[in-house]
């Protein structure tokens, strides 16, 4: 029998606020243990939480960026469980009335992975286990998170990978998180089940917790898919449980122990009041959102005539697309700009990390100037390419490298003169052309281009040479 994978994600993203969700302590990553703490975030008796306005704003931005509906009324709940990394023995979260409802993430295939909701909550502290001793650091305790909960719409490992990448991309675009999986600012739990292809009924699911890279997510899902299929095939049953993935052995194992009773006893947090978001506030926040990658990509293809593949490269990181947008201002051929970026500039910005930062020695205004020279016919493509290399080496503008005499193209007489020279000094090529070797003409055009130092219009030169040869 053939089986199909059914998966949904719960993705935690740390928000890039300056301070924690309920107190004024910094959210900076790292720091000496227990130095980003105060009575509130270590849960001293009698302390009270006060909600950070920016957390709500970022949550709304995340909702809007994923096409969700922003709840007019939302509330904070307590999720009760006793564990040393949780200073109050409850996590302040949202269950009964989350901040945003619904929405979706669109994959490149056009398939929409629906979201159930997005809620805001606090992160827990960090535990270090050593020789059976447990060391507790609350620096991360109280750092704001959003949890993005998807519907079980994912059907393959590829879709899972793209879903996570798309989420990462869009959250970075709107600037609410750096989404660094290796630093834990983005973490995924995956709910996974299998069912015979064609079946409508969902199988029993397991949950794989806290994976810290996209590769691990994919490997864990692959392993878990195989494990569940094997289990069913051999007559067994999948048990609903929480699993941890071990990337060293590439296996999943149960996290359950006798000590964990799972009943979070959620109830409204009496220390915090209702969050009321008006339509006007939602509109105001919407107006500050940048154009999102999926929409941007579509626009590049439909309006600017950029090939789909290139448009995806340009929109992968917000900094690249913004560079492109600026460099395109007022140019006739955005495709030329795109080619310069994806070709010459990308060859100098190789790693993904560098692409994300996209700190290029030539600024977009300088590239814009160069492309405009090309647009106006003042310089030719070869010269532009060579000039861009020099610009990238030096960080200087195009005009530093192009003299007056290089500009303006060739006049009629000079062009005629060069074409004549080309015919005269390349008898073999002329002969070949006459004998039906169409390609031989390229050598003659090349001669003109070379001797005009790129100023000649190649098409015009070809026409003139054909005329001369007869």
């Amino acid at each position, binding site marked *: 029998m053939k089986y199909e994978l059914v998966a949904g994600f719960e993705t935690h993203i740390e928000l890039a606020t300056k301070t924690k969700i309920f107190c004024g302590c910094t959210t900076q990553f790292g720091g000496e243990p227990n130095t980003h703490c105060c*009575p509130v975030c*270590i*849960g*001293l*008796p*009698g*302390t*009270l*939480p*006060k*909600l950070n306005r920016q957390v709500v704003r970022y949550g709304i931005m995340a909702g809007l960026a994923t096409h969700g509906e922003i709840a007019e009324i939302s509330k904070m709940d*307590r999720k*009760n469980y*006793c564990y*040393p990394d949780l*200073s*109050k*023995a*409850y996590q302040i979260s949202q269950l009964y009335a989350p901040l945003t409802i619904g929405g979706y993430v669109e994959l490149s295939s056009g398939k929409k992975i629906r979201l159930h909701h997005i809620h805001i909550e606090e992160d827990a502290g960090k535990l270090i286990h050593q020789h*059976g001793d*447990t060391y*507790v650091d609350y620096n991360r305790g109280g750092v704001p998170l959003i949890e993005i909960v998807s519907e079980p719409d994912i059907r393959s490992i590829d879709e899972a990978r793209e879903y996570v990448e798309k989420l990462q991309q869009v959250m970075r675009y709107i600037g609410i998180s750096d989404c660094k999986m290796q630093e834990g600012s983005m973490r995924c739990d995956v709910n996974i089940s299998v069912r015979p292809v064609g079946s409508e009924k969902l199988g029993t699911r397991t949950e794989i917790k806290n994976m810290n890279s996209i590769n691990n997510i994919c490997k864990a899902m692959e392993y878990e898919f195989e494990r569940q299929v094997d289990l069913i095939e051999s007559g067994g049953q999948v048990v609903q449980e929480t699993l941890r993935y071990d990337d060293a052995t590439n296996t999943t194992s149960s996290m359950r122990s006798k*000590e964990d009773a799972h*009943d979070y*006893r*959620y*109830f*409204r947090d*009496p*220390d*915090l*009041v209702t969050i009321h978001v008006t339509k006007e506030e939602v509109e105001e926040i919407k107006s500050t959102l940048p154009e999102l990658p999926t929409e941007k990509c579509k626009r590049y293809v439909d309006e600017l005539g950029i090939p789909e593949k290139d448009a995806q490269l340009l929109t992968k990181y917000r900094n690249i697309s913004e560079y492109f947008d600026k460099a395109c201002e007022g140019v006739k051929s955005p495709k030329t700009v795109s080619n310069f970026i994806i070709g010459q500039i990308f060859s100098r910005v190789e790693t993904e990390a560098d692409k994300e930062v996209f700190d290029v020695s030539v600024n977009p205004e300088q590239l814009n100037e160069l492309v405009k020279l090309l647009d106006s016919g003042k310089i030719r493509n070869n010269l532009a390419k060579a000039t861009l290399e020099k610009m990238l080496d030096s960080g200087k503008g195009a005009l530093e490298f192009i003299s007056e005499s290089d500009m303006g193209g060739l006049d009629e007489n000079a062009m005629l003169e060069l074409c004549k020279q080309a015919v005269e000094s390349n008898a073999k090529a002329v002969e070949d052309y006459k004998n039906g070797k169409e390609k031989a003409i390229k050598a003659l055009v090349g001669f003109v281009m070379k001797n005009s130092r790129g100023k000649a219009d190649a098409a015009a030169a070809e026409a003139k040479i054909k005329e001369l040869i007869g």
Partner: protein
Amino acid sequence: MGTIAKIHEMLTTKQCSCTELTKSYLDEIEKSNGELNAYVNVTGDEALKTAEKVDKKIASGEEIGLLEGVPMTLKDNLSTKGIETTCCSKILTGYKPIYNATVWDILQSQNAVMLGKTNMDEFAMGSSCETSYFGGATNPFNTKHVSGGSSGGVASAVGANIAAYGLGSDTGGSIRQPASFCGIVGLKPTYGSVSRYGLVAYASSLDQIGPITKSVEDASIVFDAISKYDEKDSTSKEYNGDTYSSLNNDIKGMKIGIAREYLDGVRDDVKEAVLNAAEVYKSLGAEIVYFDLPALKFALPVYYIIACAEASSNLGRYDGIRYGYKTEHYNGTHDMICRTRSEGFGEEVKRRILLGTYVLSAGYYDAYYKKAQNLRGTIVKAFNDAFTHCDVILAPTVPMTAFEMGRAVSDPIETYLTDICTVPVNIAGLPGVSVPCGFNAKGMPIGMQLIGKSFGEAEILNAAYKYQQAAGENFKDTKWGVKL
């Protein structure tokens, strides 16, 4: 009587220095605390330091505020920086907060002289002060009787003149009930009028800090001082209490309501004293109106469900890791936490944690917690409706007078019933003040309660003040403590 007003006058007219006054309070504590068990921690050195500061100020001719230099106490669930704050629980022994409760910040900035921290039921869970890890505080009218609870230590100390006033907390009657038992005044303010920041939480949606004092005037002075908006408490309301200026307003035509349900099951001597008070009000020109408040029938179970649910969550943090008691012998973290909690909490606290966990757990949430929340809405609405008929509500504070020590421990449900008249106010977030209104045959004080509209402290204190003026004989001093 050692009221705030009297002490202020003595200090400003230099009848005694603040240091002398403080010393005499400390001496009296030394003498009587063995029998009263009101204080669990006496902070004499700090008190004398503040007193010295006040004396210097007086000597230099500076004006001093009403609360400046007045010796007082705090219930041991109010966070005091550097001073042990135990909630009278073994689990918090040795815990010295690194921050102050907002109310203590306010009073400390006014040079209040804190004599020490006072006894209470463990985590404020109890009605007799006897669930305290340190044993109960006794009643200054008869030390074989309980002080009441949970703020029993404050009431005992104020009743025995070993503090001029104190701050307690009231979740289901914990200020008003001991005030009633000890023959003094206790004000439970409107929810949100006094910051809860630094009050160790029992049930967050019900807890409120308030004064326990010898007179209505004192309650007004202290309430006005501590009722300030606090940005640290999200449930704090933008409201600054001003009750003092209207204390002596004429109450002619004031409509005082009596809900029949409040008199059900109340002992005869208590009922009689309350109805006598109604007569006093009539003589002052107020109008007495009777009405029904059937929603009160459910107040007690609603209270216990909500209070225990919140408590089970609030008390989860006592795990032996960050502060307080930690067990000696254990095997792993889970075992350490369970042992610490099982050894550190008393029976009543454990009972309420278990009940709270039960009503929130899967399968029971809807039937208990959610239902109780709905009924809470019903009770709020019933009070709102009642206040269309009357300005304040008059009721007994407790259906009985202070009982003998040891009785409360035997039957939890019977003990819960003593809260029947006090909990509705907490459920609805309203202000209520308990005022002495007589004595029973054995000479034990009886208290009555005036309940106001939301943020109606000025009105109930005005009515209470007028009563004190007319029936001052019910405000009887005890044999104990500093005589001024």
